[in-house]
């Protein structure tokens, strides 16, 4: 009786960071999970929802409900997209025929680190990575999903990894979806402070749970001339997994 999980690769993950989806599949399969990938998935609709386009967001969400209709668990490599499904879908479909389906999908959707710790009960990992690493807790992962300790515990299971907490870890990196391009000046000021704190830790690796925030942080690091390594937690685990 193995656990089954459908990978939610997210629109950004599909197009820009397929390596993170590959890493997540590798980790889940190494833990004995039967992973599938519902190919009808595209985007959860969050960009439209956050921009105020409720009807368009609902259309996208409806397609997501269909794509994951047969899933036992849905595991997302983005905390923010998992939060969209879990926190916003039920309200988006309240009083509509899909209300039950939306609540049911919300109940079986997880962010990756949350799934590993809370569902699979992982307490030991055959992973080694020699690095001084800090962690960016993405806002929707932290505040909407309440996932704070899970990634720290997983990093704590990595042999050779020295974890350095990030000062002002609760602050947003300034991504905010369309905010990054509708308010680019404010967004840049925010990511600049985030990058200052990251560089101040002396870490040689930044780990995160959401490629959208990491794309913002990495993009600013590169523009400021830093080659600091930026990785999704799934990549750290997959790369260091004992073979």
């Amino acid at each position, binding site marked *: 009786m193995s656990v089954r999980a459908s990978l939610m690769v997210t629109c950004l993950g599909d197009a820009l960071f397929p390596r993170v989806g590959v890493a997540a599949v590798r980790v889940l399969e190494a833990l004995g999970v039967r992973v599938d990938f519902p190919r009808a998935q595209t985007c959860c609709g969050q960009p439209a929802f956050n921009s*105020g386009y409720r009807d368009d967001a609902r259309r996208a969400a409806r397609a997501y409900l269909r794509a994951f209709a047969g899933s036992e668990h849905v595991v997302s490599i983005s905390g923010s997209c998992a939060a969209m499904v879990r926190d916003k879908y039920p309200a988006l479909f309240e009083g509509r025929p899909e209300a039950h389906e939306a609540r049911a999908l919300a109940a079986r959707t997880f962010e990756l680190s949350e799934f590993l710790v809370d569902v699979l009960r992982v307490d030991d990992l055959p992973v080694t990575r020699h690095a001084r690493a800090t962690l960016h807790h993405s*806002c929707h992962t932290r505040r909407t999903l309440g996932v704070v300790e899970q990634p720290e515990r997983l990093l704590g299971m990595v042999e050779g990894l020295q974890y350095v907490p990030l000062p002002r870890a609760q*602050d947003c990196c300034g991504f905010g979806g369309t905010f990054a391009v509708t308010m680019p000046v404010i967004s840049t000021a925010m990511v600049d402070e985030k990058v200052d704190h990251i560089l101040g830790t002396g870490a040689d690796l930044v780990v995160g749970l959401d490629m959208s925030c990491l794309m913002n942080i990495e993009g600013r690091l590169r523009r400021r001339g830093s080659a600091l390594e930026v990785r999704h937690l799934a990549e750290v685990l997959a790369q260091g997994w004992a073979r």
Partner: protein
Amino acid sequence: MTGASREAFDRRVDSALGDPVLQEVISSGQDYMQALQEQAKAELDWPAWLDAVEAVRSHTIAHLDFYAAQFADNVERLGGRVCFAADAAEAREYVAALVKRKGAKLVVKSKSMVSEEIGLNRALEEAGAEVVETDLGELIVQLAGERPFHIVAPAAHKSLAQIRDLFSTMAGEELAADAGVLTTFARHVLREKFLTADIGISGCNFGVAATGTVVLVTNEGNGRMTTTLPQTHVVVMGVERLVPDLQSLEPILAVLPWAGAGERITAYVTAITGPRRPGDGDGPEELHVVLVDNGRSSILGSKYEKILHCIRCGACLDACPVYRKIGGHAYDCAYPGPIGAVLSPLLDGLERHPELPFASSLCGACSEVCSARIPLADYLLELRADAVAAGGGSASWTAGFRGFAEATRRPRAWALGERVAKVALRPFERHGSVRWGPGLLGLWTRSRDFPPWARRSFRELWRSRRPSGS
């Protein structure tokens, strides 16, 4: 979100970001307040106190008509006069008429955000009175000709040197840049004002419906001077700032000082029940209470009703990473920060503040710290939806999201779109990243590298590895 309003907003943002002194003052202020708020949460059973605050506020707002009437009846029974002002103009006119009737030359004010909301000072000056703010922070912004920067700490953005300059101008001589010297000067000047003022105007943290009591939570003593020395005391308050009875104040008085100022209790908690009675040693002969609606009753019963639960602690400003960068003046309204980004469009109309609901990364820090558990981040999302529903979305975004929504239902079309984007992006890729791009991409690459499009998407990789599909 284009046009003059957005341009003006961008200018205010640029001016805040371009001021290194301001940046330092805001972030150190936030760091200081956040540390104290953490201490509060360690000392008190914070969630339990917030439960109690929420219970009081939601009960009061659900029965606001009853409590407002009860409060007004009790104020009048005690000998006070009550004005229900439907809008800002009615409130201004009531107080201005009073100034004229009394022939008042000097009006002293203790801190009142509602008076800022309704633009009271100018109306009183036009009625012929000199108006002096007596809260130290309010005095500083009045001298500077500015709005309050922060709802609890109006002059939080001013450095010691800037305050020295403002006070030196007022004194007509060069004062030392020393907090003791400057507050002593202010105290000396204000003491004269208190003793000679004809009218004192205060805000009201909470009115107690059962007793008709006006409760002020202050630190400087100016509130008591303002409300006891002049012959006439005018209270200007939002009609929602009520609690049912004195017991209901307890959770608010436990939470407000901690959340707003990082203190266990403020220096003064003043409870004013009616004007001077025969035999009283001091107090005003006349008490007027102006209950300002100005859009509040239209929020009652709406999806935004919880915004009326606000206790004006300012914790959302102290937590907000956007406020941390742009400060209070960028919001250009009486109430800055996350509370202002929600409340101002609701009171003044979304068309007056079209950019405010969008000036947020939706990180949720405001909702997380709110003492009244107002879902501020969700309200920003609702306001965005309202803006779009009212036709406020640009043509290109509207068309873009329509196309996006259609494509989400057609995985093949979506995958084709990804391939088109990959090809379109390729000319801009240099050494594994995009450093310049056109249009929306350019708004990103102005300050950040954009990652290269993957050579093969995840869905393509998956198909090639699993010939059976999924």
